[in-house]
């Protein structure tokens, strides 16, 4: 195919384990294997076209990072052939290629040189890299004196300013503080719009589904499924739910211990000022409600700086096991938010005749970008809803329905 940019043919990666250190030397000297292999990635064949956005999902240890490192060139495959037609830039481990003793300035030139840029090309990109990273006063200091946030900013800025044909992102959509996270997200969206090929690995299935054209689901080093995001993400979600029946998912465990406090305060980005949950007008943190009878209202107050597009809001209802039960978002529902002169605004989600059946539920609130993709702030467990029912319906939801006797 003329527009094929990445071709993997039977590419695998095994890590070697030696009984004795000297076995490695003997292997190098004789060329005969004296190691035991741990297969991180089984032979894998894949073709990626120019401009495709590929999502990679899978549990920890599934081989996602190994695949991305092979594509980025930080690992060499054990078998197979890997052909890449273009410059690859990877955001895998932020600051991985930095030399701690060198200044930020020198590390820009070093990293660009590793990426294959000439001195002149780096000169041309330097000012934009520094401006995007937003740390001009620190560029002459050794990077070992940088905070982790500054390292992240500089690494992200370099990775996205070397004009790559292929961008590889591993769990890095929220880089640094709130303002920079928003800018980095916009930067990635620019790449998508410009028709660059993107490999995007994330545990956020929502973002993977929203961003990607195709999704690979890796499991135990193999492609378990690949195809359209809707199909693969659905299959993967079901798999996770089956797994959660055996082991509680991290999200559920986290939920049990999280507090409904505001995660961070960044004055330059939209933030949640407060969330109030009322049932039939009564405000509380823990509600006991009757299924299909009460009005549940979630009021979200937020602040949105005028320099950014108006944010959107999403509310998720989770079951007691952490499973997503339902969600509602202003972007999906076509609702535009407004703020006053003081940049504060509020929106209320109404759930009349709360249709969930008996059980224990919790609510999460998200303040998102105007596209509903980038999360500015997440407020967990804003309220607990203990639903009771007098009737004998089964399941988790009472769907609007009617009977037509003939």
């Amino acid at each position, binding site marked *: 195919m003329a527009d094929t940019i990445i071709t993997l043919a039977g590419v695998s990666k095994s*890590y*070697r384990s030696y009984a004795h*250190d000297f076995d*490695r*030397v003997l*292997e*190098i*000297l004789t*060329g005969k294997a004296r190691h035991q292999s741990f297969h991180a990635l089984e032979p894998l064949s894949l073709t990626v076209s120019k401009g495709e956005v590929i999502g990679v999902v899978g549990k920890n240890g599934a081989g996602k990072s190994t695949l991305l490192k092979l594509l*980025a*060139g*930080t*690992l*060499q495959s054990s078998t197979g052939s890997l052909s890449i037609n273009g410059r*690859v830039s*990877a955001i*895998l*481990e932020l600051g*991985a*290629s930095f*030399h*701690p*003793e*060198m200044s930020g300035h*020198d590390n820009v*030139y*070093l*990293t660009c*040189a*590793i*990426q*294959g*840029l*000439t*001195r002149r090309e*780096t000169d041309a990109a330097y000012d934009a890299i520094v401006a995007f990273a937003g740390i001009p006063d620190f560029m002459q200091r050794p990077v070992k004196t940088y905070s982790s946030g500054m390292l992240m900013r500089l690494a992200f800025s370099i990775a996205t300013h070397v004009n790559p044909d292929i961008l590889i992102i591993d769990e890095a959509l929220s880089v640094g503080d709130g303002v920079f996270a928003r800018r980095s997200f916009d930067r990635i969206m620019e790449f998508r719009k410009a028709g660059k090929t993107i490999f995007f690995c994330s545990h956020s299935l929502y973002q993977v589904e929203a961003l990607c054209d195709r999704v690979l689901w890796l499991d135990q080093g193999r492609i378990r499924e690949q195809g359209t995001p809707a199909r693969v993400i659905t299959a993967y979600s079901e798999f996770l739910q089956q797994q959660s029946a055996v082991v509680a998912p991290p999200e559920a465990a986290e939920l049990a211990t999280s507090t409904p406090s505001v995660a961070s305060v960044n004055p330059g980005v939209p933030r949640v000022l407060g969330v109030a949950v009322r049932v039939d007008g009564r405000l509380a943190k823990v509600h006991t409600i009757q299924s299909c009878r009460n009005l549940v209202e979630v009021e979200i107050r937020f602040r949105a700086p005028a320099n950014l597009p108006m944010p959107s809001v999403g509310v998720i209802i989770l079951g007691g096991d952490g499973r997503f039960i339902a969600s509602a978002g202003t972007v999906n529902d076509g609702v535009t938010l407004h703020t006053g002169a003081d940049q504060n605004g509020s929106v209320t989600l109404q759930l009349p005749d709360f249709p969930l059946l008996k059980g224990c539920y919790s609510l999460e609130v998200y303040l998102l970008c105007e596209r509903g993709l980038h999360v500015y702030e997440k407020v967990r467990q804003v309220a607990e809803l203990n639903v009771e029912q007098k009737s004998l319906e089964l399941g988790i939801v009472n769907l609007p329905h009617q009977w037509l006797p003939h």
Partner: protein
Amino acid sequence: MSFWLRLGRLCLDSLCVPIAAPFRHASLIRMLVQREIAARTSGTLLGKLWPLVQPGLQVLGFWFMFAVVYDMRNARGPSFLQYLLLGMLPWLCLSEVLSRSTGLFREFSVLFARSPFPLEVLPSVVVVIPGIVYSTVLVLTTGWMLGVVAALKAVLVIPLLLLWALPLLLLCAVIGLFVRDFGQALPFVLTLLMYVTPILYFPDMLPPQVRDWMWLNPLADWMTVIHGLLTGTAFPMNSVWRLAALWLVLLVPGWLLYRRTLLHVRELL
């Protein structure tokens, strides 16, 4: 693929890949060399001149010791200092390159452990500074002692020596990675090697029975070649053939081991 075809390809790779690396990654090598010079000389008054001043001062030291103090001109004729410097400067270059190559992978591990750093540039990085510095000093010294024609010939000496030393460099890097004692022992071995090589003395000062075995020391051949080339005496073709043969014998194993080691080095460090 037949054995001979594979061998031929290996020979070609062993020569082409390390030599092509400086051209493919010129920007990166320049960056690393500049960084090294800056690290060595930052805060000093002479700055970037220091790498040249140091061997220059060594030349002056040799001149003072052997031309002034010991007055070797009287003992061995006027050419002793010339003989010493023409052999000593290439030797110092070779010694510096080989000593540093034993820690090649560890020295640069910060850069390549988690990034797509092209490992094939490492041999080039360690030869660039000694190569440029000692070539410059050798050319100036030769010009001062033997004139312009000899100085022009001297331009070839260090590049040829380093090209010949490439398999040794690769082997030292591999051995140094796995046997850390090697890096500690090599400087002493090189010093001993300097004493058994006719650098500090004329070959004819050796006892005849020892002189008969000098062909076993390739560095003695190098000294003969350098002096033959620069002073215009009879060119020792036997030494040239021996050096070329040894180079060819070592090149493929050196490259093969180095290439195999590259597959392990990121996991190991």
